[in-house]
């Protein structure tokens, strides 16, 4: 257990940052560069922190016991979905860098709100958030974050092979052509955005007990850029990219601890080198080495598939 005592916090942080990287992956599947994740992450954390510390929720905590934690995840997920639709419908009329800027503005608005509201504890934030499920060590959060990573990866995998996943990819490649082929782009862009928002929100709710305190520093412009770096380094075309990028960049400061102040220089160098030499990210470069298996033709069950209307 010595290893976990020393590195448990780091491992959990790597998983957590990997999940946040993945929250950018879903909008990117549909070609949308959204940097709104820190906003939803911060909001999810605040919802959990309020439910877990505010006196007005004391009856909830007594009645639900340990179940209060999954309930905070659920609440944060729902709130993120609703806010995701409200923000997504107007914001997704913008494209490319303009969408990125609008989503950064959204993060800023939430940050200013949290600094000024009393329910969020203003500049001090909320502290003394109880440990989830009575965990006594930080590494035990692996039991929350590891299954979360598995669930998100399974979700991404299933999504990619489905009708909705195909619609996302078509929109990413050519929105106009996708539209002309019968795919309503707005609906799917909002859906992709909301999926990313829900993941970020739930991760926020999971992180509030893990970090013990929650304040306005959780959802900042810096975080937007950090999450973007995860997908750039790891690669945005595969679900493994943002996960790997998040885990790697979260571990870098720790791995380079011996280099003291030089570690920030190395951190920056890694970013520059990766964007110069790995335009598709690490996972993108690796997958080019792998030979693709050609698609298998199904054995026909329906004769004359063309004449048939499904």
């Amino acid at each position, binding site marked *: 257990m010595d290893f976990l005592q020393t590195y448990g916090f780091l491992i959990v942080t790597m998983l957590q940052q990997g999940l946040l990287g993945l929250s950018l992956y879903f909008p990117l599947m549909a070609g949308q560069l959204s940097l709104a994740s820190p906003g939803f992450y911060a909001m999810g954390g605040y919802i959990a922190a309020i439910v877990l510390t505010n006196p007005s929720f004391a009856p909830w905590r007594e009645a639900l016991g340990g179940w209060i934690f999954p309930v905070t995840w659920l609440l944060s997920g729902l709130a993120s979905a609703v806010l995701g639709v409200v923000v997504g419908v107007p914001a997704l009329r913008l494209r490319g860098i303009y969408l990125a800027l609008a989503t950064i503005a959204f993060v800023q608005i939430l940050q200013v709100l949290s600094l000024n509201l009393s329910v969020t504890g203003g500049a001090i934030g909320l502290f003394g958030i109880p440990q989830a499920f009575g965990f006594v060590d930080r590494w035990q959060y692996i039991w929350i974050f590891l299954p979360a990573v598995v669930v998100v990866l399974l979700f991404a995998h*299933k999504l990619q092979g489905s009708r909705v996943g195909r619609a996302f990819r078509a929109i990413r490649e050519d929105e106009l052509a996708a539209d*002309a082929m019968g795919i309503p782009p707005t609906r799917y862009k909002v859906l992709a955005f909301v999926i990313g928002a829900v993941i970020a929100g739930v991760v926020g709710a999971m992180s509030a007990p893990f970090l013990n305190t929650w304040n306005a520093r959780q959802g900042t412009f810096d975080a937007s850029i950090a999450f973007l770096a995860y997908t750039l380094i790891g690669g945005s075309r595969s679900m493994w990219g943002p996960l790997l990028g998040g885990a790697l960049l979260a571990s870098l400061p720790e791995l380079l601890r011996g280099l003291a102040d030089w570690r920030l220089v190395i951190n920056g160098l890694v970013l520059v080198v990766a964007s110069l030499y790995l335009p598709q990210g690490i996972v993108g470069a690796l997958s080019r080495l792998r030979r*693709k298996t050609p698609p298998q033709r199904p054995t026909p069950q329906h004769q004359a598939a063309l004449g048939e209307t499904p």
Partner: protein
Amino acid sequence: MTGHVAPNAPFAPMDAGQQLLQATGLTRRFGGLVAVNNVSFEVRRGEIFGLIGPNGAGKTTLFNLMTGLTPPSGGTLTYQGKNITGFPPHRVAALGIGRTFQNIRLFKVLSALENVKVAQHARTGAGLLQGLTGRDRAEERLVDERAWALLDLVGLANRAGEEAGNFSYGDQRRLEIARALATQPQVLLLDEPAAGMNTSEKGELTGFIRRVRDEFDLTVMIIEHHVPLVMNLCDRVAVLNFGELIAVGDPASVQRDPKVIEAYLGG
């Protein structure tokens, strides 16, 4: 799932020769330029309708107006008796008007197979939940089979897994036709399908379009510069010049029309 029909499935088919599409006073201005000026015509069910005219005459703009990619500045478009003016492209596609693009707009990094699968979107209905729980299996199977059958039709099944962007010009044009057919259209709009093809490919294309029309019970509208192909293939031809419709009729009489001769040789 197999029995699922998209909410805006095509209308019931009508008899051959009946009017299927009607444009009335269709107009599109871009600033001071009138790209399509007060154009009226009808397309009859089952025919191959050619659209010709010099460069910049407004042919592609007219296609864009008909498929919702460009909203008209004026006029109406009626399809099977329903006013579809101003419908967004995905609704037009769902109603049964499919198209290809002059400047090929395949999903380049997707495989040929995926390109043809994607285009079946409006004819299928599996949502996020069905996809996640595997309840889309029957539908997916049908989508897969149909995609392979369409690749067979255009002779690209042996390259199903290749990225569409790697295909030759002619193959990309064929793949685009397969993708348009995957939307299960009743009307197929082909924007210069022979562009970039060599002479023998052009020759094959005539037979191919006829075959597709018969096999899928289609009405075809085609923009083409290659005059022999148009004269050989089309039942009727419309001629656009500077955004205005100057002649409509059977190929032989259009070819003799003095206004058409002037547009091509004089002007």
